[in-house]
């Protein structure tokens, strides 16, 4: 099968070896602010990837700031990219996307304006969740591709940039998926120290591979903890410091997304957002109010109910298993 998709990122593993050789691995204080990190580490045209799972454990503060600083022409790894993609679409920040799952919020619905934006203003290549997982894994292994057995025979495969290969051992037909080395990854975690050592509780999604595959890695964390948390229990280290470029403490940083074991999704707010997308006027108003007119993430939290709302979302999270 001839495939037609485009590869948006560098795939030469030797170029990447040179990059990773030069990247600082020093255990130094990397604590910064959202404003500074977005201004200094994310540039127009960069290809970015967002950790978590679309509306689960997402770095909302950085995403909003990308809009406020009017970053343009970003590439996006659309790896179950739901609310994170919805935010970036609201700022028209993306011009190319590796699509596995975007512009939908699973059981919550489809945001209309984000869809329209993707239909008209974004160039894309088709993939699947597994394909993007494995592309990141190939990069984390320092390779240029991995052989896989999905997508064969379908239009998903045809519009991907995978290439058919024959297994040199079994002669079976497979797809080679190219490694994906993003320019910047942003991952929200439960706990991190000032050096970037990070702890994620619950599902990892693709984040350990993403952390290794990315040229730059920004960590936002619910809370900054002493390094002893990692030194005394090394199994707590989900992501080690030498992969990390910046650490920002953002309590409730995944809001309105879910932070497993901490607080649940704000379903009401997410549904209001989708509803606002039914009409260009209400959409503009909603995005102005919730992003552009907020100075920072904290103002957005306050606008949407502040601590009282956060307590409510925590209580929903804690009631899982005891709802009825």
């Amino acid at each position, binding site marked *: *099968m001839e495939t037609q998709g485009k590869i948006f990122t560098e795939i030469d593993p030797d170029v990447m070896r040179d990059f990773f050789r030069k990247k600082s691995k020093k255990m130094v204080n990397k604590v910064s602010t959202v404003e500074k990190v977005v201004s200094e580490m994310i540039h127009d045209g960069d290809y970015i990837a967002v950790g*978590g*799972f*679309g*509306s*689960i454990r997402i770095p909302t503060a950085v995403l909003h700031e990308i809009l406020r600083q009017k970053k343009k022409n970003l590439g996006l790894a*659309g790896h179950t990219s*739901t609310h994170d993609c919805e935010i970036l679409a609201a700022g028209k920040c993306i011009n190319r996307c590796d699509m*596995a*799952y*975007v*512009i*939908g919020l*699973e*059981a919550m619905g*489809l945001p209309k304006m984000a*869809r329209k934006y993707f*239909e008209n203003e974004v*160039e894309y290549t*088709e*993939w*699947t*969740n*597994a*394909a993007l*997982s*494995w592309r*990141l*894994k190939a990069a984390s292994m320092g390779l240029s591709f991995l052989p896989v*057995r*999905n997508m*064969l*025979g*379908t*239009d*998903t495969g045809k*519009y991907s940039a995978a290439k058919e290969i024959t297994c040199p051992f079994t002669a*079976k*037909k*497979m797809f080679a998926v190219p490694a994906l080395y993003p320019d910047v990854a942003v991952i929200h975690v439960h706990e991190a120290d000032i050096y970037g050592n990070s702890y994620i*509780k*619950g*599902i*990892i*999604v*693709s*984040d*350990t*591979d993403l952390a290794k595959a990315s040229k730059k890695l920004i960590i936002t964390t619910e809370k900054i903890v002493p390094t002893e948390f990692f030194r005394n229990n090394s199994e707590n280290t989900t992501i080690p410091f030498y992969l990390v470029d910046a650490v920002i403490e953002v309590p409730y940083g995944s809001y309105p997304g*879910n932070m*497993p*074991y901490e607080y*649940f*999704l704000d*379903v009401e707010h997410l549904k209001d957002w989708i509803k606002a997308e039914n009409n260009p006027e209400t959409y503009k108003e909603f995005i102005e109010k919730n992003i552009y007119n907020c100075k920072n993430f904290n103002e957005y939290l306050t606008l949407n109910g502040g601590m009282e709302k956060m307590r409510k979302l925590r209580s929903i*999270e804690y009631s*899982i*298993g005891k*709802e*009825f």
Partner: protein
Amino acid sequence: MEEYNSMEIMISVASRFLEDGATISVGTGGPCAAAMLAQKLYSPNLLIIFEAGGIAPLLHSMPISVGDSRTMYKAIQTTSMPEIMESLQRGVVDYCFLGGAQIDMYGNLNSTMVGTDYQHPKVRFPGSGGANDFGSLAWRTLIMTPQSQRRFVPKVDFVTTPGYLTGPGAREKAGLPPGAGPYKVITNLAVLGYDDKTKRMKIESIHPDITTEEVQKNTGFELIIKGKVPVTKPPTKEELKILREEVDPLKLIIGREAK
């Protein structure tokens, strides 16, 4: 006979296909409800996994996302997406449960776009997500969807997820692992399967008070009908009780009619 709605019969019927000891990868909504019902009633050892990384949770309430906290409630393991996808590729997963905007007679599914020009679709949908991975790599694909001419089409606009592609042998020829593929389609009107020889969709049973003509009328291609078509066993009292009281007491799924 108990009163029931279209979602309740679809979920009850689907739950009966999941035998004890099987592994299933599910999403949100009806398929999740069916897996929960099966686990409570028929298959206590049903191993339920979620693509974002949740393995064998004690599912209590309905997830909103396949990665939300409910998919990891008391889970045996909270792992990664590649870990789940690699299990599928390794042949560990017996069943997957999918939906889609369009389906054709070979069970090919479209959840990507409507239109003919890929870069300029009439309507763009979210895309494969994990659907292509499940349809390619799980041994048996189950589909739960309302049945209408709009969904059951002669040709899907885009093959997001492989069914039997163009017919017998096509999956294997394309390079997909042999012996896997579409298994059943459970709709609000009937249970559909696939003819062994042609790999085309056939009627296996029709739900009570539905006629084969109605099923055919709501399908955009010719369904294979062989002999006298049996009537689907309606939801039992026990299925409905557990579904309403334990699986979905808030009626998030069964409160809707399948349309």
